[in-house]
């Protein structure tokens, strides 16, 4: 197992640079006029254009220019310098500000998905076709039929403004309480998927031979479910949730906007919109590490959940 983890860590380095290269290439390919994008609708002064072009090597174009700028970026990265955003701010500072709040938000979203989704999924799976099961199906449909672009403002208006249970916006340094509503909104789609995955998995495992054997041996249903079925049903659910953690961090663009949380999703959105290559690559670099680590943890968890799975 130890050797397996070491090998995975080594592969991570490769994957890390692979992703930064691809994202850098995408930013490069999608580049129109970053200086104008930064200025919005305002015309750009000649002095400003010349200054920014020089500072960010925007005059380096074509394949050669791409590699020049990418290696320049990687060189700085290896020295621990993430560079400057096109707005002039240090990307290191921007990341240090954006990540903590997004991590909190994503964890709340994930906890909501786990607590509500997995619990409801187990119950629905145990009583397939029952009222509760059908209610969870209705909930799933509701979440899918009302996408986040609708759900977030709706939740904000009804639970934040009309019935002020939660603050309508969270801001830059929110309390956990202020993050609760955005967290629930953010986690809702993951919740729906986690719920249906758990339900299917539990239902499937209930029909397996070992459950029949356990039943035949006279084991209590509670024990069968909590010890055996759950453990065996969780593999796909955990896989999904592992990937989802990263998705929740990068995919919070709408939620972060509606609840005014200046986190990773918002910065990613801003960076992409203003064609701010260094900012986007900086954010994605950290994001990739999150995906890599959470997928490693998930793979290790497989072996914990199912002793038959071994990594050499």
């Amino acid at each position, binding site marked *: 197992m130890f050797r397996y983890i070491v090998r995975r860590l080594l592969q991570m380095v490769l994957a890390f640079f692979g992703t930064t290269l691809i994202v850098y290439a995408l930013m490069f390919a999608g580049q129109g006029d970053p200086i*104008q994008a930064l*200025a919005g609708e305002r015309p750009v*002064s000649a002095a400003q254009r010349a200054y920014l072009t020089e500072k960010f090597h925007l005059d380096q174009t074509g394949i050669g220019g791409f590699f020049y700028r990418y290696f320049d970026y990687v060189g700085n990265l290896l020295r621990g310098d993430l560079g400057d955003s096109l707005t002039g701010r240090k990307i290191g500072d921007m990341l240090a500000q954006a990540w903590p709040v997004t991590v909190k938000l994503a964890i709340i979203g994930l906890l909501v998905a786990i607590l509500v989704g997995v619990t409801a999924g187990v119950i629905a799976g145990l009583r397939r076709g029952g009222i509760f099961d059908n209610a969870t199906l209705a909930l799933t449909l509701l979440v899918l039929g009302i996408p986040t672009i609708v759900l977030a403002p709706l939740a904000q208006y009804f639970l934040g403004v009309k019935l002020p249970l939660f603050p309508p*916006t969270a801001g830059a340094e929110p309390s956990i309480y202020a993050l609760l509503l955005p967290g629930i909104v953010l986690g809702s789609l993951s919740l729906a998927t986690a719920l249906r995955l758990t339900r299917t998995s539990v239902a499937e495992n209930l029909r397996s031979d070992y459950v029949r054997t356990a039943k035949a041996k006279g084991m209590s249903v509670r024990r069968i479910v909590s010890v055996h079925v759950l453990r065996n049903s969780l593999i796909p659910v955990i896989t999904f949730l592992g990937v989802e953690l990263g998705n929740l961090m990068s995919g919070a663009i709408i939620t972060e906007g509606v609840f005014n949380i200046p986190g990773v999703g918002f910065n990613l959105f801003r960076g992409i919109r203003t064609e701010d290559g260094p900012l986007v690559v900086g954010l994605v670099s950290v994001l990739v590490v999150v995906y890599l680590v959470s997928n490693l943890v998930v793979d290790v968890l497989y072996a914990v959940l199912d002793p038959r799975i071994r990594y050499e």
Partner: protein
Amino acid sequence: MQVRRLAAWTALPLAATLGLAACGGGGDSGESDPNATVSIQIAEPQHLISTNTNDSSGNQVLSALFAPLVDYDEQNKPFEVAAESVNSTDNLTWTIKLKDGYTFHNGEKVTSDSYLNAWNYGAYGPNGQGNSYFFEKIAGFDDLQSKDPDGDGPQKAPEPKAQTLTGLKKVDDLTFTVTLAKPYSEFKTILGYTAFYPLPEAAFSAPGVIKDGYEDAPIGNGPFKMKGTWQHDAKVEVERYDAFPGDKPKIAGAEFRIYQQLTAAYADVLSDNLDVDVTVPTENLSTAATDLGDRFQQSQNSSFQFVAFPTFQKEFSKPDVRKAISMAIDRDEITKSIFKESQISARSFVSPVVAGYRDDTCGEACEFNPTKAKELYQAAGGPAELKITYNGDGGHKDWVDATCNQLKTNLGVDCVGAAEPKFSDLLTKVEGKQPVGLIRMGWLMDYPSMENYLGPLYTTNGSSNYYGYSNPDFDRLVQEGTTAATPDEAVKKYQQAEDILATEMPVIPLRFGQNVYAHSTRVKNVEVDLFQVVDMTKIEVVS
């Protein structure tokens, strides 16, 4: 491209629409609490250095920290604030006398040098300041710029010839003169802009070099000073500066809270979590009056919305085609149904806020007349398919779609609204001469003058004339206006120039915007000016 510019485009992604009307805060009754603070919505400012700030959020913060040389009265004429007088006998050399008693927040006295150093910094090309074009009228500007020898190539541009403007001369500690390259009768008017604020010695680490970190805590000469530093993406806090010699503010301080989306600020103002929401998003306009009552307000601003015809698309080359399209648009129906009267139908080529504005200069071409429009369109052989290209991030979809539907019905053509992700993508397509059809454009002025509309939008080298309109007579009239001896004579020339636009219709005027803002129950006397900036000396907290 000649650089003459506007300011104050809000940086919010959903920078919705703006709007007019009754001004002033609600409820003048009751006492106010001078020790309370207020919260005001802004977007993340792009910069907080006066010579580099031209977004409305940055302007809002700097307007609290700085006192301008001149401000504008209700007729939008300049009057002196930090300046004692601004005079010229020949419109070429201007003498600016400063009021005594102004100090920077660090105690430093405001002198002529504070202005000269700031302006020289702003004009110096290699500093890359966004407002450098404001100084191009001053003699010696060209010597502060450097040309890159190989355009976009890898070679570095050489150092400019000079470091300071020859046109700026110190007379004494409180007097300096500004010599312009060409006579300009409205120079006093442009001095109200952010670019002309002073900078203290403390802002510089060496002559001409701004100290690292100054931008995070700017030191100004205004009624408020920084409290802490600029918290990026979160807030900027200011507190009252008691040694300020001008009009004292009626609050102890303010928090400029940074919002990414207009809708979030609106939700906060609804629940009294925010005191002033400077821009109510379009999507909330129809419910805002019910939600907020008299806390939902409108005031005049300078925005002008129009669609333009790219000259490289030959199907629009006949003025009759352009005129017919204009006549097929029912402006009043759109301002009523889409904007809920928060914008005003435009039938002129400059905003009503500037001296020299006349109603209906566009004449018949802007009157809704579907029958005549269709006849004219068919006679002139207009294209069977129309397209309006717009930027998808500005809240324009609703009115573009509605306009297209009107054109479909009234001209019997096909019409689609084509969204580009952002304005720069639209410009890239225009510059690549792709068939974009009509393009959506908007303009906010930098300073109240007709020239600030006519110059950038319609002269051959205008900084925002992306559609390529060019008429030598028009250029000549605008040029004569800027060098005219008096503002009145200037206006006459500008009006003659505007009349040319009415016959040629290079663009279709659609609407004039207004500020549409809202405030909480805590505050009163909230006023938002032409530049979308909250008046920080008038706002009060209800006690």
